[in-house]
């Protein structure tokens, strides 16, 4: 397949189409609206259902309905939309039907702005709708990675009967990069046995478990599947970790920007490397725990006020020194800022026992209230 110049939002849309997407229901919201617009001509071109819903609330419920029929279905949105979808996601999780959701993250909270951030980490990884469930969250850092992850997400979601979230920073949705599209899969003709199909034997897809014992069985069943996901689906990339004494941990665009800083730092002789988690849920706890035993310090870099930071701290379990650097609200850090942090930590790490977020807030004081 040839490499072509693709815009992130259109790339994930095309990747989903090639994965055999059977229906797309969405709603305009910056910075992912290009995906909706792309789907509005690509899906009908292939004779597949496309609908702009009345709201994100409508969209997620249309996805829910189609998912119950066993169809490959997705939606895409951004923070204010994911909040509206939380109810639907909880129902989808409890009904144990697979869907794919792409979250193109903007600044917030609230209406915020349309520039990129990583503000949805907690909502997607730890929060979400009500109840005991987990969803797979994968975070690419390039358009190609977005294509590959979206293409494979349908298989993952179906394998585990779970919600598969592709979470990309707004920057990745908007940027254009060369990427190679995977082969076009045919729409599959068989449907899973559990799917409703308007046929002879009656099937009911519901999230109601009136008897507490049945609800508990469902919760345990879902948790056992989650255990399998934790065992099998952790993904990450390591860069320059050979002999590294400082490890940067950053995902998505933050990780990519940190990589530039790491390259420069290495050229100056600073023994620093980068861990870029790709699966945020399940989180690479095991890896971080092992790295903590090898390095003198970890710097977590995010485009928020420290969300993955808490997961890193939990995985590190005090085995090494942890610091944090973050820009939020849509501000994107430059490699130079991260390089300054690396240089500071390599000479004089902050070891006065304060929580890394508190120390970071103090350093951010130069940004006025």
């Amino acid at each position, binding site marked *: 397949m040839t490499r072509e110049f693709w815009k992130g939002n259109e790339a994930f849309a095309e990747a989903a189409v090639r994965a055999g997407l*059977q*229906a797309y*229901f969405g709603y305009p919201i910056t910075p992912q609206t290009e995906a909706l617009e792309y789907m509005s001509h690509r899906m009908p071109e292939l004779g597949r*259902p496309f*609908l702009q*819903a*009345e*709201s994100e*609330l*409508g*969209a997620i*419920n*249309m*996805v*829910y*309905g*189609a*998912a*119950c*029929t066993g*169809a490959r*279905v997705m939606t895409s949105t951004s923070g204010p939309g994911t909040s509206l979808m939380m*109810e*639907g996601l909880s*129902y989808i999780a409890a*009904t144990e039907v697979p869907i794919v959701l792409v979250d193109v993250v903007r600044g917030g909270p609230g209406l915020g702005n349309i520039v990129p951030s990583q503000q949805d980490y907690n909502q997607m990884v730890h929060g979400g709708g009500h109840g005991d469930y987990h969803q797979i969250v994968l975070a690419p850092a390039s358009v190609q990675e977005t294509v590959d992850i979206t293409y494979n997400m349908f298989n993952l979601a179906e394998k585990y009967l779970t919600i598969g979230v592709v979470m990309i920073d707004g920057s990745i949705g908007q940027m254009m990069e060369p990427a190679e599209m995977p082969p076009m899969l045919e729409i599959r003709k068989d449907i899973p046995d559990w799917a*409703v*199909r*308007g*046929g*002879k034997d*009656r*099937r*009911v*897809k*519901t*999230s*109601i478990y009136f008897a507490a014992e049945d609800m508990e069985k469902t919760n345990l069943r879902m948790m056992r599947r989650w255990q399998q996901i934790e065992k099998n689906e952790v993904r990450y990339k390591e860069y320059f970790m050979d002999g590294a004494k400082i490890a940067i941990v950053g995902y998505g665009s933050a990780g990519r920007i940190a990589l530039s800083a790491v390259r420069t730092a290495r050229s100056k002789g600073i023994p620093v490397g980068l861990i870029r988690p790709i699966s945020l849920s399940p989180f690479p706890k095991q890896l971080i725990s092992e790295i903590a035993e090898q390095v003198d310090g970890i710097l977590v870099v995010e485009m928020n006020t420290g969300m993955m930071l808490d997961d890193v701290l939990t995985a590190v379990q005090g085995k090494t020194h942890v610091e944090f650097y973050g820009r939020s609200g849509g501000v994107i850090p430059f490699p130079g800022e991260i390089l300054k942090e690396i240089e500071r930590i390599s000479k004089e790490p902050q070891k006065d026992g304060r929580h890394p977020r508190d120390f970071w807030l103090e350093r951010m004081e130069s940004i006025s209230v």
Partner: protein
Amino acid sequence: MAIADIKNMEVVYERPKTLINKITSYCPGCTHGIAHRLVAEVIDEMGLSDKTIGVASVGCSAFSYEYFNCDFVAAPHGRAPAMATGVKRVLPDRIVFTYQGDGDMISIGTGEIVAAAGRGENITVIFINNANYGMTGGQMAPTTLPGMKTTSSPHGRDVEKMGYPIRASELLSTLDGASYIVRRSLHNAKNIRKAKKAIRMAFETQVRGLGFSMVELLSTCPTNLHLSPVDAMNWLEEKMVPYYPIGDYKVHPVLSEINI
């Protein structure tokens, strides 16, 4: 005993096959039972049980899927029209219907029902209007009558503070996408017969691909009205019918020519 020998008799009426043979969880005399039965009879008569997917909503009707012998999905409160849209768009040759109460459809679900009707979505909506939130114990609904006492309007609905009821059939009939919008009542045998005809026409609308259809069924909630089922039917005739007139609010021209 007055039971005659049925060996020499023919069956004039029996339970529809699409209704599963089990006692419902609805209160004695609740018109949900009548509405379920009518929908099941229509599905039987049109031979649709092997082609139908129902969409349950939230309210007493949350359990509607326990009683119909066809595929069902269960929507969050108010979202049934959107869920039905998702199903119908991927399986356009199946018959998709929602079964919703007044709180579900015209309170939290206003966005979804207006959008679905506006889009002319080729689905059928069975709308049960009993002027209160039954499942949660009888609170005020958008359809509660002025002056009517409910657990959240204990002194009677004061239109100054709590607004006026919403007439959903009239509202939705203004939309070009709507093809069959009618209101019927379940308060006596004659009206139940008319209601069944309307439900049949609504499903015919869908089968013929004519667009969005809805039958609003004026209903009772004997338990929360604190009336016997028989007295609740009288309440329906005396109080509800004058405020929510029985009638045809939108009928696609093709439908007026059908004679069933």
